[in-house]
């Protein structure tokens, strides 16, 4: 099932609606990379609230999304990781070190806004 991508001013918001197959995830990655270029977006939010498992493949793909978007000059923030999922991810040994995360959509937007204000100089992580 394809993930809908919404354009909201200079941000893109991808909200995952249900469990995804690997192919869906890869498709999301490519669609986001494509759209960021097309719309000259400055930030991307991927909302994973609906995912009840984030295994090594999904984590790696989310990290890839973040890298690819960065290469196109924009920021990515992953929002909505569930407590149990976060717990399983760290137990599995997934290092998500250079991927920005926020609690939910609202916090994700705040994070991106803040990044915009800080401009190129800010390298601060968090919110």
């Amino acid at each position: 099932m394809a993930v809908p991508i919404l354009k909201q001013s200079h941000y893109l918001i991808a909200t995952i609606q249900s469990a995804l197959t690997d192919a869906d995830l890869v498709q999301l990655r490519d669609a986001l990379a494509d759209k960021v270029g097309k719309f000259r977006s400055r930030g991307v939010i991927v909302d994973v609230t609906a995912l009840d498992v984030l295994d090594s493949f999904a984590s790696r793909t989310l990290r890839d999304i973040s890298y690819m978007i960065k290469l196109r000059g924009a920021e990515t923030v992953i929002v909505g990781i569930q407590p149990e999922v976060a717990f399983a991810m760290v137990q599995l040994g997934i290092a998500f070190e250079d991927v920005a995360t926020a609690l939910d959509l609202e916090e994700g937007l705040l994070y991106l806004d803040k990044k915009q204000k800080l401009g190129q100089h800010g390298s601060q992580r968090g919110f």
Partner: protein
Amino acid sequence: MAASVGFEAETEFCIAVNSDNDLVAARRKGRVLAEQIGFSGSEATLVATAISELARNIVSYAGRGEILLSTVGNGSSIGITVIARDQGPGIADTRRVLEHGYSTSGGLGLGLPGVRRIMDEFDIISAPGLGTTITVTKWKRR
């Protein structure tokens, strides 16, 4: 191949794994079974995550195989056993694949070591040309 399960277990689900589409169903069945026997939400998530890693390895390295899910009991506790088995190329060095970061596919190489960490019991039987059977169990926390 000789039976690899040394205890009485009733297979509750057998899920054919032929493509990454089957992973979703395998994870879901694992979660349902885990919750049925009273696992907490985070324990069930761990079981589902382990199933996902094992099933994906089947798809990536053997092409096809199956996941067997069953509940097990040893008198005082209850748990879930996941058997991931395929007739693929097998693994020559079963110790090596348990090292964090070892991968022949450019992956992160954290699937198997991660599964071993999140499950309570881990057993791997494999030889080149003979396929791979990985049996893992998670006991319910009291």
